[in-house]
Each structure stands twice: as C-alpha cells, then as structure tokens.
C-alpha cells in the first residue's frame, strides 16, 4: 500500500519543482533539491496569507510563469517576494539542520546542457526549452526514473512475495492477483480485437445463481473467456463467471494452472452443483471438445449436447438456464481438416489444419479479427419439476433438447442479421 502512495507524492513534488520561478535558485545556489523539499513542505503546511498569488503561479508551466510574474502589479509582486523570502529562510533553516546534505548530482548533466547550448546557441536553446518544456528539465527525467524504478521494485517485490507463497486463493484455487494481471489482455480482445457486442445482459441476475449454456467454437476456447469478460466488463454488478472446462485441459502444463487461477473449474457435476449452491454464475459448453474442434464447413451447427449433465446440475440446484449464442468465433480459424495422426502423437483430442496453421507455425495461431456478438437469451426456469427431477431420464433428455434448440435459434437469428463476418 505504501509504494504507490510514495510515487504519487514524489510525482507532485517534481512537478511543482518544475513550476518554481527562477528567482528561487539564485539565493540558495546549490540547494536545488532543498528548494523542492522546502516547497513540498510548504505545499503541505500551506503557510502565509498570499494564497491567490500562490494559486496563480504554481500550476503554470515554467517559462510563462516568469513572464507573468514580471507583468504583475506591485502588491502581488510584494507578496511574491515575501514568499520567496520565507522560502529562503526555510531553506537556511533546513541547511542548519542538516549541513551534510547535498542534493543527488547527475554526473555530466550540467555539462550536457552547456554542450547543447554551445551547439545550438544560447537563444535557440532557450527557444527549444520553452517549446519542449518539461522534457528538457532534468527534474522531469529524475521523476520519470524514480517512478520507473519504483514500479520495477514494486513488481520485483510482488514476484518475490509470490515466490514465498504469500498470496491468497479461494478453495478452488482462484487467485485474484492473477485474474487482475490477465484481465487487460482479455479486455483488449473483447473491446478492440473482436469488438464484441453483447445483448441480453439485463437477463443476467445481479445476485444469485444462473447457468449459461453456450455453443462452443473456434478451435481455441476463447468464447468462454469472452463471455466471462462480457459479464465482468458490462454487467452492472461486474460479476465473475466460472467457466467449466473439459477434463483434458488439466493435462496441459501452464494452461491448467492458469485456468484454475482465473476461477475456472473442471466440468464435473459435483463441481457445478457446488458452485451453483454458492450462488455463482457458471457457464458450460455442453458440446465440449467436439464442438470447439468443428470443421469450417460445419460451423454454427450444434453437435450433441453431452450427456445432459448440465441439466441435472440445474434441476438439482433449481437454477435458471440462460441460453447463449456466440457468433463470430467460428471464423477466427478456418479448420479445413483434422489430422488424427498428429493429434494422436502429441496427445491432443484434435489437431486442426487451417490455411495458416501449422504452415506458419506460431503466426498461424493468431486468430482472425472477426466481429463477435454474444446474445443471451430468455432464461429457461428449472424449478417446478419437483425433487428427484434430475433422476428422471426422460425429463433430462427433453430439457437438453429444449435448451439446445434455444441456443440454435439464437445463433440462427444472429446469423440472419449479420451482413459481414468482419463488420457484423
């Protein structure tokens, strides 16, 4: 907590130092740093009556304030002189208190300025200085260096703290720090790259449980991340969505801990029921691996909806189901064929062949910047079927078909409205 505070404080200090009238430097001589210090302390205590003049001179940039000061009438002038006098007194007192202090010198800085003056001429140098403003002020760079240093130190501290296990996770292993760290990337994808438009957000409850049932597409499971981003960024309560992933993902290094730390869980009925009983938002992709690895020619045609596990979850916890259609993800990769042999060798459930992958290597993994839309449909209530409804096989398969139909209808509606893959 103390780190960021320090930064902002120091930042204001350097800024105000840049705005100090030049006269201040003369009496103190070498006490550049002391002027700043004194000024900072003055700003904090806010002494002396001449407040209007202080307000006027302080926020103005360097050169213009000098000019403005010379045009001031005499009472203001007097007040200014009084202020300078007070500051100088303060500086002298500070000097007495710590005679050993000398401001940090940047080697060669003065020489550089002199050399620059020599090259461009003194008047030109002043002109450049007035145009470039703070950029030529050594204090600006000092401040920038300080901030960069602090940031690096803060990040190093964070890393070290995490290495020593000093961080919190919930019982599922979700780590809010990691979530915060990756959120900007997904926000970029959501807002800039795929320009996602989400409709039906008002159907997502502000509190309490709900189960999203979503079509799966796009070779890589970005659709789950985009739905979660939509709710996180656009829903008034900025709720967290727990996405359920297939049990193949835990076998992957780096991917599996990332998923878990972002609050996602393995798709099992026990997990889903537990999350819904905790009144969380859960999203499931009942098509599973078969859905995400669809060929381009089969796009937007839903495959089998699992074995109805999500319906059992919803019936058991009496959770309303929100059908969701993600349109645009199918075109991010154009899977022309699948290689079973390569998939078998590297242990993946499928291995897509697209016009760019694997021919271009990692470049081929970059998805197409299509225009996405996420449509959240009318909730399908799951209460009112009585207890033990989840064991009624007929009911479960009926409801599975009903939800599947609702998702397919949402997809078809959106596809009918869509004019262009890239512009929506």
């Amino acid at each position, binding site marked *: 907590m103390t780190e960021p505070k320090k930064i902002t404080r120091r930042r204001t200090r350097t800024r105000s130092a840049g705005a100090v009238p030049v006269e201040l430097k003369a009496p103190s001589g070498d006490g550049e740093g002391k002027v700043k210090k004194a000024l900072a302390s003055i700003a904090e205590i806010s002494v002396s009556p001449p407040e209007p003049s202080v307000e006027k001179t302080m926020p103005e940039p360097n050169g213009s304030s000098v000019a403005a000061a010379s045009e001031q009438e005499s009472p203001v002038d007097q007040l200014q002189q009084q202020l300078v006098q007070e500051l100088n007194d303060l500086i002298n007192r500070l000097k007495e208190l710590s005679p050993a202090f000398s401001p940090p010198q940047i080697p060669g800085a003065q020489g550089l300025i002199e050399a620059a003056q020599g090259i461009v001429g003194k008047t030109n140098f002043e002109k450049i200085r007035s145009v470039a403003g703070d950029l030529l002020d050594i204090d600006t760079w000092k401040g920038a260096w300080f901030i960069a240093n602090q940031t690096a130190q803060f990040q190093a501290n964070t890393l070290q703290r*995490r*290495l*020593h*296990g*000093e*961080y919190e*996770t919930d*019982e*599922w*292993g979700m*780590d809010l720090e990691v979530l915060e760290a990756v959120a900007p990337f997904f926000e970029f994808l959501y807002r800039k790259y795929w320009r996602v438009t989400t409709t039906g957000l008002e159907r997502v409850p502000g509190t309490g449980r709900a189960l999203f049932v979503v079509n799966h597409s796009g070779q890589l499971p970005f659709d789950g991340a985009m739905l979660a981003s939509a709710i996180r960024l656009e829903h008034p309560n900025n709720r967290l969505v727990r996405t359920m992933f297939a*049990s*193949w*993902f*835990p*076998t*992957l*290094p*780096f*991917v*599996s*801990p990332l998923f*878990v*730390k972002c609050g996602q*869980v*393995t798709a*099992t009925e*026990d*997990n889903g029921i*537990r999350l819904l009983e905790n009144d969380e938002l859960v999203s499931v992709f009942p098509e599973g691996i078969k859905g995400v690895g669809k060929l381009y020619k089969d796009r937007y045609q839903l495959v089998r909806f699992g074995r109805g596990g999500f319906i059992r979850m919803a019936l058991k916890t009496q959770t309303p189901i929100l059908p969701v259609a993600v349109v645009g993800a199918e075109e991010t990769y154009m899977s022309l064929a699948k290689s079973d042999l390569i998939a078998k060798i590297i242990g993946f459930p499928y291995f897509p062949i697209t016009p760019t992958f694997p021919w271009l290597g990692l470049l081929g993994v970059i998805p197409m910047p299509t225009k996405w839309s996420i449509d959240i449909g009318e909730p399908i209530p799951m209460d009112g079927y009585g207890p033990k409804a989840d064991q009624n096989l007929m009911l479960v398969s009926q409801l599975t078909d009903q939800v599947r139909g609702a998702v397919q209808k949402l997809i078809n509606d959106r596809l009918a409205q869509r004019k262009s893959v890239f512009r929506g």
Partner: protein
Amino acid sequence: MIEKRVVLVDGVAGYWGGRVAERLLTEPDLHVIGLDTKPPQQGSGIDFIQADMRNTLLVELLKEEKVHTYVHLAFLDSKRPSETAFEFNVMGTMKVLSACAEAGVKRVILKSSTLIYGAQPGNSAFLREDHPLNAKRNFGALRDLIEIENFCTGFRSQSPEVQLTVLRFAHILGPTVDSPLVQFLRDDTAPMLLGFDPVVQIVHEEDVVNALVYATIYDVPGTYNIAAQGAMPLSKLTGLAGKFAVPVFHPIAYLGESFLGSQFTPIDFDYFRYSCVGDLQRMRDDLEFKPAYLAEDAVREFAALRKHIAETPALTPQEAEEERLRAVIERRKNIRQQVTSGGPSRPQPRGRPEADIVAESADNNLYEEKSQ
C-alpha cells in the same frame, strides 16, 4: 466402581500408535492396552502386551481383555510395493478385523489416506468419500490402503455389528512426523512438474492424533476425509515452506520415474499434476470434528521450525550421545518416582503438561478468530 472401557492400540512402538496411545492415556475413563512386537520407547504408563497382531490367538486376547475399541495403527510404510509390507498391512488388517468380529469388539478405528482417490485430470475439486479409489498402484503404501479399504467395504456388510470408522487423512505435515510430504519438503533436490500447480490439502500431525482420539472416544462409524481448512496451490505450499522445487518438464519426469522406480520421489508425480482434494463436509457436519490448525498455519509452523533447525549447529556425535543418555536417565528417574508414588499395577493417567494445554487453547482461539 464403573468399569473402564478397554481400548487396544496396536503398533504402539510406531509413531502413530505411540502418539495416540499417549493421548488416550490421559482419558480417565479408558483403559489402554498397547500391542506391538517390540516394546514402545516411552510408554511408561501403558499396559503393554508384546505380540504380533497377526497371531491367531488375538481373538482369545480380545475376548479375555473385553476389548471394546480396537485402534489399528500398525502399518508398514513402503514406497515400493513389497510382499512383506502387503502381508503385514493387508493380511494383518484382515486378520485383525475378523478377530474383532469374532471376539465381539464393538468398534474398530482405521487410519487411511485421501490420496487413494488418485490424482486424475477429471477429478472434481472436492472428492466425496464415495468417490472410487483410483490411485495408481505403483506406491506400496497406497496400494495396500486401497486393498484394505476394499476389504472394509465387504467387511461392513458381513459384520454390521462391528462399527468401523475409517479416517482418510490428507498429506500429513508437522514438526515430528516423517510423512511423504515432509520428506518432499526437506529434500532439496526433489523436483516438481513444470507448469502444473494443483491444489493440495494438508493436515497437521496434531490433528491426525486428535481425530484418531476423537473417533476412539465418540461413536462415529463411517468413512471420513480429514484435512485442515484452506487447501492451497502447491506453489504456495512450497513457497511458504521455503523449499525450492526444481521444475521438471513432465514427460521427462515420468520417463525418469519409469527408469528409476517409484522411490525417485517421495510423492508420485501425479499428485504434483492433478489435484486430489477431499470434500470436508462430512468431517464438519457428521463427524463434527474441527482441526485445530489451518493449513496455512501448519505450513508456517513447519517452515519456522525448519529454519530454526537449519540455523542451530548440529550436535557432534559425542554431544548427541550425551543428550541421549541424559534422556534415558530422566526417563528412568521418572519411572522410579511413579513406582514409589503410585504403584506399578495400574497405569497412571498422566496429565498433560500445562504449557501444552495453554498452547492448544491459544491455537483454538486463533482458529475461531480466523474462521469467523
């Protein structure tokens, strides 16, 4: 005089048997009998019988002593599946259980592990007690436990009059125990898997003893997962414990395991890859047992102690020998005092030192505060 309930603890010369017997001795209404093939190291107050639990006359002994509760803690820990260990653990347990049924023992307490669920990619985040026992059978101890538990399922239906309590403990951690997790954390070269960070569940050794004593005293038949609150990612555990685990790419690790055998690491690599966390709902609601340690506190305590040990200079052999002899003298002096004051016939219920009790209550307070 009210007749005391007779509790027989086997394996008292072992770590768990010794510790549980020691705690049971402090219960005033229990008479504790210890059973083992060799005498316990510091069982001064215990009514010790030197015998093998596999002895066919165990039935006679149980009948004669009117044993009410049998706490079965004799277990040979072996990494590699070995015939001797299998014979001792599995056949031994079968003999004990059938002897208990024969002799009319009311309750049997068994110690097991949550690791027998197996670490698998499709595991739920919290595994209930009815989850199938899927652990790989390449680790001797786990294989034996699965065999024992499978036998228990049949035994429950065959002899419903014997109330069987099976406590499945998560990874055990503590300053004195020598568990696989402790070996892993102590071993500076033991690797973990690159890019995997499963959630792990632990339990403090003190809570293991507490739970076993609790199950002995109260009437709680059934199978329960026992672990501390607050499962944490493996990287957090190693970080807090101050262990630097070398990350190894998993195909290489598995290759190494298949060449070098399973004692390559103290814990099978699967447990560093997939999570295997027990659901604690039954422990809270049915068993109504509350571990004194939070998981994080247990790890911090372990780390602090480890640091302390690393900083104190090791004893020279001569000093160690002197220390040992001093302990022996103390022990003999204590026994002699007991003989002169109390009498050898009746096992003295030994009160626990006051400092211990204070520490425990402080811990409980801490727990209360944190859980609120």
